[in-house]
């Protein structure tokens, strides 16, 4: 069980150290810098090069350290924590293999613009470059997958490196920042000086959009006949959900969301058409296709949304709001580019816009929505994945934090789960990293212990990180983990069925009994084989207190995720029904 790491005498010493300059070692300086950043929790796994850091953690009573069983989980949990809370997630690993195990989670944070700080141990300075035991060039390896990284070669630089890391991670377009600290830097005694403010010469963030561009955008939207708002994760990061909702309600402009933007507005609002893209709703995709003006905000025109670029919204003029200038015009030219913070820009835009005349447009959209809603058939025999997702939506009222893994179940969850507010749908969007779901749900639960957090995973993805059931049990997490178990790598199997003549190459799994496995870990485990068992099992999982509850639901292995716009194609090629 968890050991309380607080040692009152040393805690007092640390508190005193915070008040006046005092000699401390690099690792203690690191703890003080984390305290000043308000870090309350970090996810990590110790090792040789990070032993001094862990020795300082032993005394850091302001900081809760969650020992994970694999560093990949630490990074995913930090992401889940950041996405649920809006704060910076922190993970740590030792040099070499510890650090390389963080890579998938760091890349996920990069792709989805999630603020995390990764702190890695490094071999001592004198042996760097000598192929020492557990040495890896971690700053070199992580250059393309971090917003920024640094190798601290002087303990006096630790405060600046840490405060810069947090500042870079959370400002502008958020992202992961890695700080690599050699073991002897962590051990060296210094008198630290903590900077009062951070100023980074080559880093500027433009927050306020150009007034003339915003005026042009308001004009274009006010006169539009078939406008659409296309909103993404940038809304969540900018905490701009209220502004987007106000804009949508004031103008009645149909609003589609990317998978990263889910929950940006209350998805039960009929003005919201749900998810757009490869597995988005048919009506959201048709609306984009026919739109004359598109307000794209906090999105990056990802290929899973656009399909073939030249056929994406071919008649539309694009207004593109983003905090990252490099996203504007990257994939699709913007007619009205606006660089700025979504919250600020939308707030100004609302004041200038006249609701457009779009009754005819809504008539069209409602007809599409009526003709092609999401639908499934739940027979009496095999359990439909969609039935489980639909039921989870109904049982939680869209008020839980739904965290998914990657694959078919992820898209079904995105289709059926209708979050009522931001930060309530967490998924590996850009990277599509299997193994993400359960650890990210753990991180979200640590961030929001009083909210219902639900992990929905596939059998394939769960196997990638399930060892950390040990961690969730250790911390007594009330966490339902719903496995939509079809005994296959479902999305791979679906593509093989559709595009590779049904040749199911290495996509069928031989699984253990996950419910029994969960019990062995000390979690609750429930196996579901028949449709009528689903609802009682979900209800039990949602109310299990003090330990995770794994519900292993045997699902129909032949169910396909539709609608689907095949990769690289357009809405014209959308597959609607089997």
């Amino acid at each position: 069980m968890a050991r309380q790491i607080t040692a009152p005498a040393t805690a007092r010493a640390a508190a005193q150290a915070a008040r006046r300059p005092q000699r401390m070692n690099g690792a203690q300086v690191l703890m003080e810098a984390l305290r000043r950043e308000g870090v309350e929790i970090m996810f990590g796994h110790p090792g040789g090069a990070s032993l001094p850091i862990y020795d300082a953690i032993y005394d850091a009573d302001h900081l809760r350290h969650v020992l994970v069983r694999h560093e990949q989980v630490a990074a995913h949990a930090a992401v889940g924590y950041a996405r649920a809370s809006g704060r910076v997630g922190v993970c740590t690993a030792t040099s070499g293999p510890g650090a390389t195990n963080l890579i998938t989670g760091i890349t996920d944070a990069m792709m989805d613009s999630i603020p995390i700080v990764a702190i890695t141990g490094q071999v001592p300075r004198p042996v760097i470059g000598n192929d020492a035991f557990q040495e890896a060039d971690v700053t070199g390896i992580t250059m393309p997958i971090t917003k920024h990284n640094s190798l601290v070669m002087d303990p006096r630089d630790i405060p600046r490196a840490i405060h810069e890391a947090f500042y870079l991670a959370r400002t502008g377009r958020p992202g992961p920042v890695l700080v690599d600290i050699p073991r002897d830097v962590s051990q060296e005694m210094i008198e630290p000086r903590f900077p009062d403010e951070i100023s980074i010469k080559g880093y500027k963030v433009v927050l306020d959009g150009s007034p003339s561009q915003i005026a042009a955008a308001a004009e274009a939207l006010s006169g539009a006949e078939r406008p659409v708002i296309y909103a993404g994760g940038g809304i969540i990061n900018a905490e701009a959900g209220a502004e987007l909702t106000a804009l949508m309600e004031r103008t009645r402009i149909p609003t589609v969301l990317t998978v990263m933007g889910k929950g940006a507005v209350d998805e039960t609002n009929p003005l919201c058409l749900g998810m757009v893209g490869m597995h988005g709703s048919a009506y959201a995709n048709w609306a984009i296709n026919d739109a004359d003006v598109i307000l794209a905000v906090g999105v990056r025109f990802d290929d899973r949304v656009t399909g073939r670029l030249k056929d994406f919204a071919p008649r539309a003029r694009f207004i593109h709001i983003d905090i990252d200038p490099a996203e504007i015009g990257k994939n699709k030219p913007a007619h009205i580019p606006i660089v700025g913070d979504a919250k600020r820009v939308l707030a100004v835009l609302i004041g200038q816009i006249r609701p457009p005349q779009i009754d005819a447009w809504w008539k069209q959209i409602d007809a599409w929505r009526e003709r092609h809603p999401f639908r499934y058939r739940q027979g009496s025999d095999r359990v439909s994945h969609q039935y489980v997702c639909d039921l989870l939506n109904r049982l939680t009222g869209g008020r839980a934090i739904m965290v998914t893994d990657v694959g078919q179940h992820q898209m079904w969850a995105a289709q059926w789960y209708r979050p009522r507010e931001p930060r309530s749908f967490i998924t590996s969007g850009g990277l599509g990293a299997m193994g993400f779901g359960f650890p990210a749900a753990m991180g979200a639960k640590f961030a929001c212990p009083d909210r219902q957090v639900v992990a929905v995973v596939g059998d394939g993805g769960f196997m990638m990180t399930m060892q950390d059931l040990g961690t969730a049990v250790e911390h007594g997490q009330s966490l339902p983990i719903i496995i939509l178990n079809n005994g296959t790598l479902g999305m791979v199997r679906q593509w093989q069925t559709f595009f590779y003549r049904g040749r199911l190459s290495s996509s069928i799994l031989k699984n253990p009994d996950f419910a029994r496995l969960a019990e062995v870990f000390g979690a609750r485990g429930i196996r579901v084989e028949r449709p009528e068992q689903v609802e009682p099992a979900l209800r039990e999982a949602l109310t299990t207190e003090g330990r995770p509850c794994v519900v292993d639901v045997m699902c129909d292995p032949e169910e396909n995720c539709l609608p689907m716009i095949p990769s690289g194609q357009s809405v014209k090629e959308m597959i609607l029904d089997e």
Partner: protein
Amino acid sequence: MSEPHAATISVLVQNQAGVLVRVAGLIRRRGVNIHSLSVGPTEDEGVSRMTIVVDTPPDKTESFAKQLRKLVEVLRATAIDDIPTVDRELALVKVNATPGTRMEIMEIANVFRANIVDLTDKTMTLEVTGRTDKVDAIISLLTKYGIREMARTGQVTLARGSQNT
């Protein structure tokens, strides 16, 4: 997609360990081919200038400069396609030269205002400075004598006039 062409991007970077790797890594990751890349100090001690000539479609050059600006160490990145510039490159060319061909080569050097910086009984080494097309031109003339080896600095560029690059 339009045809790639050589675009020049001038980049001011903080003079820190690893910055060249970051810039080069970003260029590679975005699938862009480097023609030349030159780095050197500037009037500001902590700042270096990189002049990078890359193959990008004209409509992607600015987008590429924006990606470079996202690197924290990059202080400024300017795509200098459309503004008047001064461009220079330096080349050292070691060419076969017998007593019989020496005069001819010196004449070529004269025309191109190249300096003879070394001489042996078998070779001459020329130093030529100018725009890349001028350097290309003298190299093509010298090819027939047999170029033994050559080193080029890559292009360096500043904007003409009083404004900064």
